[in-house]
């Protein structure tokens, strides 16, 4: 067989099961695009910005759990891709970015659109490659797939100079596909020790992170929790591992948790951390997090154990494997005083979502949309108040239903991630809850959704403000609101029309419920503008750097407003 480097890349991607690739062409990746044009099984989705392409790939990978690939050209194409890849690193998402690079004889000459892509991608990838010859691609491409999904998943970057894409290679057979390494041996002693701690615990709490989603362990996690009758908290990334309506679910923990959730953690005597990494948004001030608890920590990444908080027992393992070994050693427990205590805490420290019954309110829109959605649904968000409200209020049912930028918190994630999810799940409805600030960061992808006629419904929670910034300034900077409010409001309904997308406005309609129903019912993309009062905050909120028990429950009247009231 005789193929060019570019053809080898495309064929190897086909062989690894890749069927849809988002990207943008340019001078340095044109040979790859030419080869892609000849592929009979890979479709290309033309994004409008490389960050959009990267988040489309993330959407694909997050709903399927399988690696997704995206393409960009050298120089500005590569730099535009960076945020989406860095985001995948922090949330452990297996995406593979393949960029063109200037020909090798021009590298180091400040050639047109030359940038040190390899160097730039080192700190934001799990691993990265620079292909020096077309032959090397036989190792690099399968290895990229292997690394992306082995152990803790993560993003990969492959930089391919143009001469490598064009070089012809003669060869006899294709290399084997990259598959996940499976070289974990369980330390049975720690499993035994963990079981002892868990069995002796009087007030255990299970703390579930994104690892439960990545390792497809939600069923076994749920079985373990039920066996123990243990109340369970989830991180932002872990939502969906246990259905929100599960009687043992205490929802999300940390900065925007329900008050009873953080209070319960204060009282637990054993914390069973499953695929969670003690992120500061979850723990609050670490020294005061679960002060009385012995910690059992299971994670596939050894460097996560004892990184933030020392565990009594640390187990490095795939979560599903670890639970399989652990379960038989765990004693079944009936509901007891601890479960009663949890019910009592729920009564004493309830979660309050104002105006939930009003479908045009900040929380109400989420609740009503959830109530109206039928069948398979996926939910994406952007970053800000609307994101935290969805995390608090949406009744998640199953793993991979929830797509949000957790670790990096990247505004601009929501729309392209929804496109990626819809590409993989064409029968489903994908809802993107976004903010008026965030949507502007990748608004160009509206036309991509229209072009692909995807079933993506975009709810713009529009407070004409960088709401979460506004909230922090209002609460913690003595109400000095600066650079948070927009002085001109964007007409998103018109903007959507310009992108040839159906659009609706909850602000001017008489019957909000039927408007939402109409927007959801018609197949294809739609944008719905939802005016929100900028003074409606997300509560509870733990002040940044504070302990979780110090959460603010409502707007506190600051000294300054007190003075204003007196005057």
């Amino acid at each position, binding site marked *: 067989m005789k193929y060019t480097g570019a053809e080898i890349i495309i064929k190897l991607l086909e062989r690894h099961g890749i069927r849809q690739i988002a990207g943008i062409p340019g001078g340095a990746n044109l040979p790859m695009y030419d080869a892609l044009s000849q592929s009979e099984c890979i479709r290309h989705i033309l994004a409008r910005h490389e960050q959009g392409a990267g988040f489309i790939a993330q959407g694909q990978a997050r709903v399927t759990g399988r690696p997704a690939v995206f393409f960009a050209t050298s120089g500005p194409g590569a730099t535009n891709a960076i945020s989406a890849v860095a985001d995948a690193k922090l949330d452990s998402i297996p995406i593979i970015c393949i960029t063109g690079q200037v020909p090798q004889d021009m590298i180091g000459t400040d050639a047109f659109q030359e940038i040190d892509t*390899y*160097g730039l991608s*080192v*700190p934001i990838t*799990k*691993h*990265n490659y*620079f292909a020096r010859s077309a032959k090397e691609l036989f190792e690099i491409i399968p290895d990229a797939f292997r*690394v992306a999904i082995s152990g803790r998943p993560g993003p990969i970057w492959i930089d391919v100079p143009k001469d490598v894409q064009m070089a012809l290679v003669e060869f006899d057979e294709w290399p084997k596909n990259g598959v996940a390494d499976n070289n974990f041996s369980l330390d049975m002693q720690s499993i035994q020790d963990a079981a002892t701690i868990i069995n002796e615990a009087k007030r255990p709490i299970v703390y579930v992170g994104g690892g439960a989603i990545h390792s497809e362990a939600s069923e076994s996690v749920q079985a373990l929790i039920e066996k123990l009758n243990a109340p369970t908290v989830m991180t932002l990334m872990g939502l969906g591992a246990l259905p929100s309506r599960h009687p043992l679910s205490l929802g999300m923990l940390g900065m925007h948790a329900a008050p009873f959730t953080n209070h319960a953690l204060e009282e637990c005597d054993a914390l069973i951390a499953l695929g969670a990494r003690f992120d500061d948004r979850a723990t609050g001030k670490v020294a005061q997090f679960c002060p009385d608890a012995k910690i059992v920590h299971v994670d596939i*990444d*050894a*460097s996560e154990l*004892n*990184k933030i908080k020392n565990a009594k027992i640390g187990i490095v393992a795939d979560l599903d494997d670890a639970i399989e070994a652990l379960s038989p050693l765990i004693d079944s427990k009936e509901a007891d005083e601890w479960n009663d205590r949890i019910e009592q805490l729920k009564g004493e420290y309830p979660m309050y979502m104002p105006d939930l019954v009003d479908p045009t309110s900040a929380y109400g829109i989420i609740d009503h949309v959830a109530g109206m959605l039928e069948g398979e649904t996926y939910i994406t968000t952007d970053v800000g108040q609307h994101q935290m409200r969805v995390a608090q209020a949406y009744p998640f049912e199953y793993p991979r239903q929830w797509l949000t930028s957790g670790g990096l918190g990247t505004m601009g994630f929501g729309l392209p991630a929804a496109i990626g999810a819809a590409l993989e799940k064409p029968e489903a409805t994908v809802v993107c809850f976004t903010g008026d600030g965030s949507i502007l960061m990748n608004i160009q992808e509206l036309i991509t959704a229209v072009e692909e006629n995807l079933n993506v419904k975009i709810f713009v929670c529009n407070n004409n403000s960088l709401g979460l910034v506004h909230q922090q300034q209002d609460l913690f900077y003595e109400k000095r609101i600066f650079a948070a409010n927009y002085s001109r409001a964007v007409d998103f309904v018109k903007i959507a029309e310009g992108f040839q997308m159906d659009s609706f406005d909850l602000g001017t309609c008489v019957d909000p419920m039927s408007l939402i129903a109409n927007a959801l019912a018609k197949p294809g993309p739609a944008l719905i503008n939802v005016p929100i009062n900028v003074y409606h905050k997300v509560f509870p909120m733990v002040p940044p750097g504070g302990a979780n028990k110090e959460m603010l429950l409502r707007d506190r009247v600051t000294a300054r407003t007190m003075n204003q009231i007196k005057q």
Partner: protein
Amino acid sequence: MKTNTILELTVKNHSGVMMHVCSLFARRVFNVDGVLCLPTGDVTKSRLWLRVKEDLRLEQMILQLQKLEDVLAVRRHGASHAVFERIGEYFRE
């Protein structure tokens, strides 16, 4: 004064390895005051010696090193390891 620790890394022999290792220390603001690297007898491998300060974060650094795809093995030696002592001769002013 903090004492030194010597780290001995066996790594894959290709151009990006030094960058991956040094960048890991640099971005975590962890000072490396000595670096030595040469291929081993086996052409596919190199040996990389690092002299770093003993620090509470060292355990975490070693775990991070072990996660690098191109790092095959990490060994930890005490400050008295001969490798930097002997080569020190070439570094005196």
